[in-house]
């Protein structure tokens, strides 16, 4: 038998460290990545003709970004790297990829999915207006294109990324109107013991908030979003919220960056038939992983934020751990002391993650308060009222049933941005626990394919 065929999906922090570990063990993995360059979202590289130095682009994380890019560069020639290649399905021991309108299946003995995360969104009335972007989007505009998403930007939502991107905008010279956080400040105090698992990161977090305040940016906590105002033609014109005292306040802006932390991209794990479990802490279904990223399916492993959102540092560890699990299962040697050290480190990362979940909770209650006319599904303009009628009048109490009846989650983002909120709305309208609503099943292709795609026959 030849060398085992190992495929790594994703070239972010987890995918790169995974591939590196496999190469160090003498394997030649295939790395499939949807992006043009390695780095994932967090360490996304700017185009070659841009000149901003690492320190400017990645701030306190510059050294890590540079190290990851250098590691990946050193792997070139020792891996089969397929950039701009979408893994769109997984079936019968093969990953189906598409590149430049050609699709083919690549068989594997072991598959490591490092698919990363996307923004977790809770709709607000008016979020479909042009000029509303996800928080991640607002950061990509700056990092990869040196642009702000507007000339006056409001940051609204919750989570560490809210403060990070807002302060990156301030530093880059953008006008930040306000940072509006739905999480009450006291939650952060309560979460301190867990957050102290990573004192350096906590310190950076404090610095971000004080930088913003020093720059004169209004930072409000414990707010409730009411509406993004604007018109269908002109797009975003402002934001209305209730402050923590219950008074309504308006902010003029032409862009809103919105997000409530991140959610793992789990469609590929689903297509690989990995078992999922309901995570009560974060109120979502996540792939079930055992030690070191093993899934319920032999030969399929998960690493990084695509399993649960632990952040970039933990993703590097998760990628290494998943690679070690692959090696072990292939009866290849791994360095046991290193494995133990990584597991310990990952446990510390998880303690910090739980602190973040406690400090910046998913605002489930907003789903119940969302007015009927608010759009939930941006793809197909399905409103909260449409979804509630599907529950109340047609008896749908399960996510896929509701999707079939009113198309929430059927649009071309495939429920990435409405799925979690939709489930909350169904659960509230039906009076059932969220867990019982289930989860939208992953569908191939995980992203739309061009009509002209052809199969390559070998």
């Amino acid at each position: 038998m030849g060398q085992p065929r190992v495929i790594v999906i994703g070239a972010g922090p987890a995918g790169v460290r995974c591939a590196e570990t496999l190469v160090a063990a003498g394997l030649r993995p295939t790395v499939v990545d949807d992006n043009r360059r390695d780095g994932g979202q967090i360490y996304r590289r700017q185009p070659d003709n841009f000149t901003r130095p690492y320190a400017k682009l990645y701030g306190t994380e510059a050294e890590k970004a540079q190290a990851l890019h250098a590691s990946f560069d050193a792997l070139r020639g020792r891996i089969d790297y397929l950039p701009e290649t979408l893994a769109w399905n997984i079936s019968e021991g093969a990953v189906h990829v598409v590149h430049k309108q050609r699709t083919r299946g690549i068989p594997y003995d072991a598959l490591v999915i490092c698919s990363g995360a996307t923004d977790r969104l809770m709709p607000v009335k008016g979020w479909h207006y042009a000029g509303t972007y996800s928080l991640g989007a607002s950061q990509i505009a700056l990092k990869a294109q040196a642009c702000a998403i507007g000339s006056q930007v409001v940051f609204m939502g919750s989570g560490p990324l809210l403060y990070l991107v807002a302060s990156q905008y301030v530093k880059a010279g953008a006008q930040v109107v306000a940072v509006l956080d739905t999480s009450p400040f006291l939650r952060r105090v309560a979460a301190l013991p867990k957050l102290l698992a990573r004192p350096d990161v906590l310190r950076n977090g404090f610095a971000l908030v004080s930088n913003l305040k020093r720059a004169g940016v209004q930072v409000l906590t414990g707010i409730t979003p009411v509406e993004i105002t604007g018109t269908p033609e002109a797009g975003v014109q402002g934001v209305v919220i209730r402050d923590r005292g219950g008074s309504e306040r308006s902010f003029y802006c032409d862009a809103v960056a919105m997000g409530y932390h991140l959610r793992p991209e789990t469609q590929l794990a689903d297509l690989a038939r990995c078992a999922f479990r309901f995570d009560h802490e974060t109120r979502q279904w996540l792939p079930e992983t055992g030690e070191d990223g093993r899934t319920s399916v032999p030969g399929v492993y998960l690493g990084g934020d695509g399993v649960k959102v632990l952040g970039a540092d933990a993703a590097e560890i998760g990628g290494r751990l998943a690679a070690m699990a692959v090696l072990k299962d292939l009866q290849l040697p791994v360095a046991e002391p290193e494995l133990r050290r990584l597991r310990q480190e990952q446990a510390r990362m998880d303690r910090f993650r739980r602190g973040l979940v406690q400090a910046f909770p998913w605002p489930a209650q907003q789903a119940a308060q969302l007015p009927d006319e608010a759009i939930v599904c941006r793809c197909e303009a399905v409103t909260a009222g449409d979804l509630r009628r599907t529950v109340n009048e047609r008896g749908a109490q399960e996510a896929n049933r509701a999707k079939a009846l009113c198309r929430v989650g059927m649009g071309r983002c495939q429920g990435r941005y409405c799925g979690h909120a939709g489930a909350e709305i169904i659960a509230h309208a039906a009076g059932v626990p969220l867990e019982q609503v289930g989860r939208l099943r992953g569908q191939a292709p995980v992203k739309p394919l061009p009509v002209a795609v052809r199969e390559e026959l070998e």
Partner: protein
Amino acid sequence: MNLSRSTSGGAGRRFARLAETDRQPLRIVIDGRPAQALAGDTLMVAVLNHARQLRASEFGDGKRAGFCLMGACQDCWVWTAGGARLRACTTMAEEGMHIVTTQPEAAWASHA
């Protein structure tokens, strides 16, 4: 050139360039109007530096200007003059590109 329909909605640009403006200019055409982009721009950035939207929602709820910028939401589709669909956030602008911000099929609907 059709001057009666403006891509900018008469209201300038949506994105604000903050740095990296000293790049090679590119000439592109957006809805029949010549526009200047910079080498290294995504189509999304190229268009939103001349207009306040990329496209119209097919569901009648107004103009759209993209959402996720990472190829996940599919809310930034534009078309080539030949009718090929492009995801504006992950496609780089190239010299001489002709971009159309209205879906070709949408124009045929009345003949269906």
